């Protein structure tokens, strides 16, 4: 990141460029990553609602489960911004999200 001096920063620590948190890749903070089992997921949207980041992506991507159930959309994780808090896994009513340690051992 560019090392701005005190003269270069907007006064008062104001953030004058809206939405720039996108550039801050907070995914590196994660110790556990949520992984969605697309066959078990019932597309209820609860993880999307609860994610504080928000790092659950709601995509117009059709998916057919192994059981033959067809969905118009898919939920995926934005791993660039997911901090691994685990709220999605905790709230998932069908336990379709598992938290997997980022570092093995």
């Amino acid at each position, binding site marked *: 990141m560019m090392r*701005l*001096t*005190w003269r270069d*920063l*907007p*006064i*008062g*620590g*104001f*953030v*004058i460029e*809206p939405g720039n948190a996108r550039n801050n890749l907070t995914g590196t903070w994660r110790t556990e990553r949520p992984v969605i089992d697309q066959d078990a997921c019932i597309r209820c949207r609860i993880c999307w609602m609860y994610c504080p980041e928000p790092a659950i992506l709601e995509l117009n991507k059709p998916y057919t489960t192994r059981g033959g159930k067809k969905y118009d959309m898919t939920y995926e994780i934005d791993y660039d911004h997911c901090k691994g808090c685990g709220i999605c896994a905790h709230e998932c009513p069908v336990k379709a999200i598992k938290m997997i340690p980022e570092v093995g051992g």
Partner: protein
Amino acid sequence: MLGIREEIVKERLGLTSNYAAAYAVKTVDVDVIAAYPITPQTTIIEKLAEFVANGELDAEYIPVESEHSALSAVVGASAAGARVFTATAAQGLEFMHEVLHITSGLRLPVVMAVPGRALSAPISIHGDYQDIMNARDAGWIMIIASSAQEVYDSIIMAYRIAEDQRVLLPVMVSYDGFLMSHTTEPVELYHEEYVRKFTPRNLSRYRLDPRKPITVGVIASPDWYYEIKYQAVHALRESKQVIKEVHEEFNKAFGTNYDLVEKYMVDDADYVLITYGGASSGNAKEAARRARERGLRAGVVRIRLFRPFPADELVNAVKDAKIVAVVDRALTPGDVYEGPVFSDVVSALYSRNIEKPVISVVHGISQRTMLADDFYNLYKMLDEYAKTGVYPRSTVFLGLRS
């Protein structure tokens, strides 16, 4: 000079400093007032409530549940672009202390009036400057007025200074609790059009606006905090030049004679008292007159701008004096000397390579009566110290029963 006053003065009223503050706030047309009553400030916000209720002032008036909330509410309104006002004193100023730092850190041009009062315990509603001196490191511009007229004029100037794009810092206008806040003096109020012309709104500063979103009040990691805090430190130091400019323009537009420090008979003075506020400065001037009648070359320097500290102006004013005393109406217990402004004066002199005896004097705590004779005796003491070369190396507590 007289010509200008005839044109701009609308009326001459008998007003307390608190009412003078309220009239100034009305005339600069503030948008949002949030306040919580506390002695000796309450009559300011009562008067403002009356102006709003009567339709004389078109402002949002937010009665809040504490001083912490009062300053927080005007911080929010100021961040949204409003011109704001609040007032407090003593325990109230202590209670809003953390928000004082937030206001300056966020660079919000809040203006606040503070008639100074002693701090508990023991409980005291009476005036001194303990509360104000406790706020001195909060990054605000601090002006100390000495008359009701000066309070009125200073609040008008405060908006112009605070909102200057080069400054963008909060301004505190303080004065003596009770001895000024509740004392009626003649005050000349100006026609609104002249005051409004002098205090145009800064429409180009950043503000919270859903059409052009920004974030105010972020967390800064150690990578950024130091730089952002230094900006505010730098802005306060550099604001002195803007404050000077605003004083010059105000003097020209309103026919007044304000400066960062007020000098009274100091040009040839051997003995100088450095004071702030109304009662100590007034008594010191009377004492200087009496001392001069008795052959002592006495003078007074009153500090009007307290933060940023006018070091050069003060040093220039006292550099030829033989001996100087700083009269504090506040305390810094446990410090090398127990008068807070004394320390500022000594470091100002030392940093400019001026070596001379400086005496630390404390008086007027919780409005302990300060007599002109006390100050006259101080001049006599200075004369004696100058002759003997022996002077006190600890704070002199005047008016204390001992």
